[in-house]
């Protein structure tokens, strides 16, 4: 276990979620937009319409700024934010999928080289060569999605990896194909929405053609995406489906994303077949914000559905290894921590906190509480998913019996640690977080 990083009131998951949700926009524009660009460039050449080429120049420059500045950095941002909230989970993923990420990185190199060459050779090389470079970019960008989807799917359904530990057994998991098809469809929808923003900045003839293309691609993408999402849901494990139904927040977010899906489909329909008078950068950006909210809903569902795990069947949400992983020679930490104690095995506290006494139990309880809970909960009243709110009105003894002893029956990881550690954590929650009466030190230390 590593040092803890706490974000008061907002909580770590919100940090990851906001960056990850935003990242989907530029990353899917980056993967989807150049298929559309290839189509438009061919049209421009075949129909001799130079104004479409002018759009493509503007489109590419905007992609360089939107996707290769905010997109690439928020991509690293997901990685960083997940690291500072759940370093052991990132470490687990990296120690399995380092070559997967490294392979994806090779495709990033191809992307970056081809898009800059594409942009700086507009009108400078033959049409055939320019088209070929654009297509090369589109392919490389999509293959980077083919790779990352395997790792994303693994985090929901690790499949046979749990028994074999094999890279490809986890990569081609139960949700891999439906998720790849969903993301592939959605990249056209998101790229369509983005192209409509750029089309709104055009003043002349290309504008009407582009917004119609954007609408058609977007509509096709969102309808196909919805169908593949249904397929994805049929592949989810039973506990994930149960979480979606039972956790009020998750079912609400699912509804939000469904409604937004319908709104976006109508928007694309109007773009494709309407008169287009409403097309403008402001409307386009507004619809991107709506799309952002819809993606946020869908991503929240995906994230919460895998509770109580970060890596299902292996690591709990609080980074404690909950199950043996025989193929890699890893043993569950639950039994070890239950018998030896969590504090004994946490390297980042002073020696005098490892043994709980009548003098230090509140400090020790704070360490235990935060180690086990801070990955999902905030501490203070009024915070997001706040422990103080969830436990309001309980005494330390009540927290032990009503909550900590009963965690595993819900979508929460079980409390891990010795009985005295459990009481110390409960005392910290009751005395400090809830501001209750001082818990009897004798009860904490001796259990009576």
């Amino acid at each position, binding site marked *: 276990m*590593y*040092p*803890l*990083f*706490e974000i008061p009131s907002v909580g770590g998951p919100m*940090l990851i979620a906001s960056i990850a949700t935003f990242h989907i926009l530029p990353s899917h524009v980056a993967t989807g937009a150049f298929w559309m660009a290839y189509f438009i460039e061919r049209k421009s050449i075949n129909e001799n319409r130079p104004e479409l080429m002018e759009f493509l120049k503007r489109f590419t420059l905007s992609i*360089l700024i939107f996707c*290769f*500045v*905010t997109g*690439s950095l*928020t991509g*690293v941002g997901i990685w*960083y*934010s997940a*690291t*500072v909230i759940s370093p052991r989970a990132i*470490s*687990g993923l*990296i*120690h399995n*999928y*380092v*070559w*997967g990420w*490294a*392979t994806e*990185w*090779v495709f*990033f*190199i*191809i992307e*970056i*080289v081809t898009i*800059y*060459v594409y942009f*700086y*050779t507009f009108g*400078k*090389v*033959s049409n055939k060569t320019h088209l070929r*470079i654009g297509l*090369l970019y589109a392919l*490389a960008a999509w293959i980077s999605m083919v790779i990352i989807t395997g790792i994303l799917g693994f985090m929901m359904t690790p499949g046979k990896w749990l028994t074999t*530990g*094999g*890279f*490809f057994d986890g990569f081609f998991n139960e949700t891999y194909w439906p998720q790849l098809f969903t993301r592939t469809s959605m990249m056209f929808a998101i790229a369509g929405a983005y192209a409509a923003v750029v089309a709104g900045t055009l003043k002349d003839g290309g504008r009407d053609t582009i917004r119609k293309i954007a609408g058609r691609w977007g509509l096709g993408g969102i309808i196909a995406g919805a169908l593949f999402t249904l397929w994805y849901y049929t592949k989810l494990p039973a506990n994930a489906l149960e979480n979606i139904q039972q956790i009020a927040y998750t079912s609400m977010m699912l509804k939000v994303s469904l409604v937004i899906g319908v709104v976006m489909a109508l928007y694309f329909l109007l773009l494709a077949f309407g008169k287009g008078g409403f097309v403008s950068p402001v409307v386009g950006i507004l619809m991107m914000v709506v799309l952002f909210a819809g993606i946020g809903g869908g991503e929240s569902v995906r994230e919460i559905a895998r509770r109580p795990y970060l890596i299902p069947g292996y690591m709990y949400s609080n980074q404690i290894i909950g199950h043996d992983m025989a193929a*890699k*020679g890893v043993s569950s930490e639950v039994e070890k921590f239950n018998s030896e104690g969590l504090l004994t095995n946490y*390297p*980042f*506290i*002073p020696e*005098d*906190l490892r043994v709980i006494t009548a003098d230090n139990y509140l*400090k020790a309880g*704070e*360490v235990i509480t935060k180690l086990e809970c*801070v990955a999902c909960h905030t501490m203070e009243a009024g915070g997001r998913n706040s422990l103080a709110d969830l436990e309001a009105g309980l005494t330390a003894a009540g927290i032990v019996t009503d909550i900590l002893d009963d965690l595993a029956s819900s979508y929460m990881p079980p409390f891990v640690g010795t009985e005295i550690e459990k009481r110390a954590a409960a005392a910290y929650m009751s005395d400090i977080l809830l501001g209750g009466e001082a818990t009897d030190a004798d009860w904490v230390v001796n259990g009576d």
Partner: protein
Amino acid sequence: MEISAMLSQLRDPMGVPFFPVVFQVLMVLTFALHIFMVNIVVGGSFMAIWSRVKGGDYNLRLSKTLAKATTVNLSVAILLGIAPLLFVQVIYDPFWYSATLMSGWWSMLFLLIIMLGFLALYVFYLKGRNGTSGGGMFGWFTLGAVLFAGVIMHMLAMQSLHPEEWVKWYAPGGVMDTSGWAFNAFSIERFLHFIVPAFINTGIFMMLYAWYFKPRSDMDGAYLDWVAGVGAKMALYAFFVQIAIGFWFLLGLPAELNFIYNPWVWIAALLALVALGMVVKAQKDPIASAPILGLLSVVAVLGMSINREVLRMKYVGVYEYSIYDYPMSMDWGSTALFLATFVAGLVVIAYPIGIAFKAGRMSAEAAKEL
């Protein structure tokens, strides 16, 4: 808890999927390429601002070129930075995660500041696209952002090298500091040792620019000679500063590490001497010397990168940590996937790079045939 036991406990229990030395070599190689590009970004943005502020025909042309080049260079620098960041987490995970977790907000700020700096760079570039002055404020912001990001990354690297301090930093007085604002380690001489080469490498980059466009009959030869001359001078002056900083850094290292007796230090010193000789010689005909100096500058940065890793091994070796005894859980399939993709990827990028290289050196009419 004893430090070596702590480090061993913190290692990922699943082990590494291939020989650790392979990750180490890739980490050193990609870090060298990354820091080389960072150098050109720092030096290039400085020169772009400086020449725009100075004004005049040549200066504004140089500013426009360097601003445009820096947008590409910063993209490439970020991309190349991902790889060493990935590999360090494979073999030095206890160090990287411990240092980063104590400074969670700093590591998030690192990304935000680069993003804002990059956006400002585009404003700076677009404002000067027509060879006009102005926009310098955005340029300064970019330079400041990149340097500040470097300060954060340097601090994280320094924190990671001192596991003996971690508990004191994280729980001063026995109370955990979970705020993520820890900023505990900084070595100005080490930081400068990686930043001052920015001016050497950018100088050489400017010489290469002149060399590249020299064959174009429609380019202004006198301007290209001027650019190469300015670059060569800048590289020379920065070289002297770098030598002084090198001594400062080397002599300031903890004596017990015995780093100065390491053969890699002497190889790097020898390389530096050869490079200095070349830079002095290049003052006479900067354009002709550009290709060989370009190659030498990459090799020199690789030498620095190797020494950086050797130094890290010395630091962690004090606590009996060695990447070579990291438990392995071999995965041949995924290793083959990466290696095959890597080779194929190099072949694929040769095509667009070749097209761009040829197109840039030809007249507009001739390039249309490509």
